[in-house]
């Protein structure tokens, strides 16, 4: 059965809890947790009528589907519409040796060696940022703090000339919105924005990339393994939009969590070795990417529930990371929690490509903040709906600075 046939099959399969919830309306996108709890309680697999898809909301099933790429493939796309799902120049939507080759080529600059060289630059950036914040009375935790490092640093690292940071951010937002279902109001405009991006890419890559930047390396390393230029240009998308918004989401929500949990901030300030568990704990609770999909390559089952070949299954990272079957007091923020096992970076073959960089950005920034900030005070805040990313749009923040000693 093809994906389209699965969509047409509007009647719920027998014996599976079925819901008519729309995950992509604003009210659910900004506060999905009651919906997640309902889906988790209903069973290991549920049916989403609005989509004609199966969905897994519990930890164990999300984890096992993500681990088994042979049965639950990304090759038919990981999104919610056929336009996005038809993109094949990305490790995200390929499998097997082809996936590994793309991943190895595009992963080159995001490895230990290059990241080691980047460390002093990130630290300088964070220190300058914090100094500049000290002069301001009222801060927006998103615009002034969370966005600064991912946008400035990543735009520069990728190294495309003539792209403003604002443009980069817009592509980031639209890139993720373009993954949503066609019935969601954000999807069509986002697909159009991404068409504009493709035109820009055709005209400017690789002619307008900075020598030595990620884009430049990608075209060169791609050519070395025989990629046509068009293919490398497609793979470049993997740097453009996923690299910015997801990190902004995690940093912004991290600031909010520390403002709401001053005890956790005190602990981190007193013991910086906790950064290695605090950052994963932020990413668990934030789950910047809330869900993707997979397609069954054969008749199979999940937790004893029959899943016919060709069915699309929604894997709900944001819900799995709040599952009390896996995490004790899943909604509480505990920076000493065992960092292994959460699904905030995904799992298996398609786990986050940019994780080592995002992790380093966050460790560096929160470490410098811990040197300087005694207390974060959060005022009003609001989440900004997006088809895939859960992110703050605004966060009123005031800061009690630590006394210099």
């Amino acid at each position: 059965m093809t994906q389209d046939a699965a969509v047409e099959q509007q009647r719920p399969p027998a014996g599976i809890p079925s819901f008519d919830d729309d995950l992509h309306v604003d009210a659910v996108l900004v506060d999905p947790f009651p919906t997640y709890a309902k889906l988790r309680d209903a069973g290991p697999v549920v049916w989403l009528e609005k989509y004609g898809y199966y969905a897994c909301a519990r930890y164990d099933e999300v984890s096992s589907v993500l681990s088994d790429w042979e049965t639950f493939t990304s090759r038919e796309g990981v999104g919610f519409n056929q336009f996005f799902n038809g993109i094949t120049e990305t490790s995200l939507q390929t499998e097997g040796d082809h996936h590994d080759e793309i991943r190895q080529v595009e992963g080159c600059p995001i490895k230990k060696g290059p990241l080691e060289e980047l460390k002093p630059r990130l630290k300088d950036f964070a220190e300058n940022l914090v100094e500049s914040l000290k002069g301001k009375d009222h801060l927006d935790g998103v615009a002034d703090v969370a966005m600064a490092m991912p946008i400035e640093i990543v735009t520069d690292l990728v190294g495309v000339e003539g792209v403003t940071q604002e443009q980069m951010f817009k592509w980031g937002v639209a890139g993720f919105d373009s993954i949503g279902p066609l019935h969601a109001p954000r999807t069509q405009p986002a697909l159009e924005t991404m068409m504009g991006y493709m035109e820009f890419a055709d005209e400017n890559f690789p002619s307008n990339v900075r020598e030595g930047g990620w884009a430049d390396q990608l075209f060169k390393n791609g050519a070395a393994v025989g990629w046509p230029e068009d293919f490398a240009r497609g793979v470049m998308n993997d740097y453009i939009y996923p690299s910015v918004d997801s990190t902004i989401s995690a940093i912004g929500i991290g600031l909010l969590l520390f403002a709401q949990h001053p005890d956790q901030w005190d602990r981190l300030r007193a013991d910086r070795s906790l950064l290695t568990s605090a950052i994963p704990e932020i990413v668990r609770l934030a789950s910047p990417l809330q869900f993707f999909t997979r397609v069954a390559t054969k008749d199979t089952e999940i937790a004893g529930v029959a899943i016919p070949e060709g069915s699309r299954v929604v894997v709900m990272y944001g819900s799995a990371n709040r599952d009390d079957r896996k995490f004790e007091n899943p909604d509480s923020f505990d920076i000493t929690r065992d960092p292994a096992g959460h699904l905030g970076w995904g799992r298996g073959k398609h786990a986050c490509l940019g994780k080592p960089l995002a992790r380093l950005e966050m460790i560096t920034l929160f470490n410098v903040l811990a040197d300087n900030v005694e207390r974060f005070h959060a005022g009003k805040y609001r989440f900004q709906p997006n088809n895939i990313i859960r992110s703050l749009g605004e966060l009123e923040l005031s800061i009690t600075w630590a006394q210099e000693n």
Partner: protein
Amino acid sequence: MKIQIEYGMCDGHGECVIAAPEVFDLNDDGDEVILLDDSPAESLRDKVNAAIKLCPVAAIRVEG
């Protein structure tokens, strides 16, 4: 069975540690794999294969 790690590739995802904790661990920074046993017993082959299958960057290889 002899295991080789391409350390330059490893992202520290720790998938291998979850799949085969007898064989793999992560360093204290949580950003690179530590090979606990480079010639694990045959009984661990399934777990090692699971680790290979999960590693996002194909950094684990096995001979024999």
